């Protein structure tokens, strides 16, 4: 079994804000992240797939194809976007890194060919803060 990781990145604006709460309550819970005019991040995305290398190609999966799928299905929706306003799969959700990584998993999984097993996603919001998701 081999694990193969492709690293991608995107930049986006967001805010952490629960619309059912007052502004004061949001500021109390989310601090500076609740700024109503948004702030932003350089997100780093690690997509890891697993499996055995194909005997003919030696590849687990063509990493260029993997990159294209990630670009078309995920980055296209997130890069240089406002996560709260412009991303369909985050509608009605708090745009935390936790919810974002689950959303990315759910977007990506159905787009991968059957023989590709998604193992893990790792998402850095800053160089010091990241989340991992294994489905």
């Amino acid at each position: 079994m081999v694990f193969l990781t492709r690293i991608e990145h995107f930049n986006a604006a967001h805010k952490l804000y629960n619309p059912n709460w007052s502004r004061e309550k949001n500021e109390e819970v989310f601090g500076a992240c609740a700024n109503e005019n948004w702030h932003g991040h350089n997100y780093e995305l690690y997509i890891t797939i697993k499996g055995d290398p194909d005997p003919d190609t030696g590849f687990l999966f063509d990493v260029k194809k993997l990159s294209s799928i990630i670009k078309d299905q995920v980055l296209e929706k997130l890069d240089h976007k406002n996560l709260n306003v412009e991303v369909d799969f985050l509608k009605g959700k708090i745009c935390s890194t936790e919810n974002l990584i689950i959303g990315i998993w759910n977007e990506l999984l159905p787009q991968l060919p059957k023989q590709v097993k998604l193992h893990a996603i790792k998402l850095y919001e800053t160089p010091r803060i990241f989340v991992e998701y294994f489905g």
Partner: protein
Amino acid sequence: MNKKVAIFRKEHFNAAHRLSVPEWTDEQNFEVFGKCSNPHYHGHNYDLVVKVTGVPDPKTGYVVNLSVLSDLIQKHVLAKFDHKNLNLDTKEFASLNPTAENIVLVIYEILREKIDPKLDLSVRLYETERNFVEYPA
């Protein structure tokens, strides 16, 4: 002998911004600024490197007290820009396009006023790991 030493302080802030020329249409802005012109904004983790150069003080051995320099950056730069929308939340970029070039110039001007004129100042700003600017050039 006057031996100059450069001392650096690294800081970081996160902000949203949009690149655009207000007199232009959305199409013209997209042509020039691409995805960075998104009217709904996008954002970055900015990394800031402040370089101060001078001769260490013979008594203290310091070019500048790093704790004082860090407080200056915190109070006069990060407090203004961290977790903000540069276009909407700051007076500095209310009518100035918040490109990395303009941001580094603004930060330099803010800090230059606060740092001893005998000391040289240089500011480097990373918008992403791969895109960064420096002033003076």
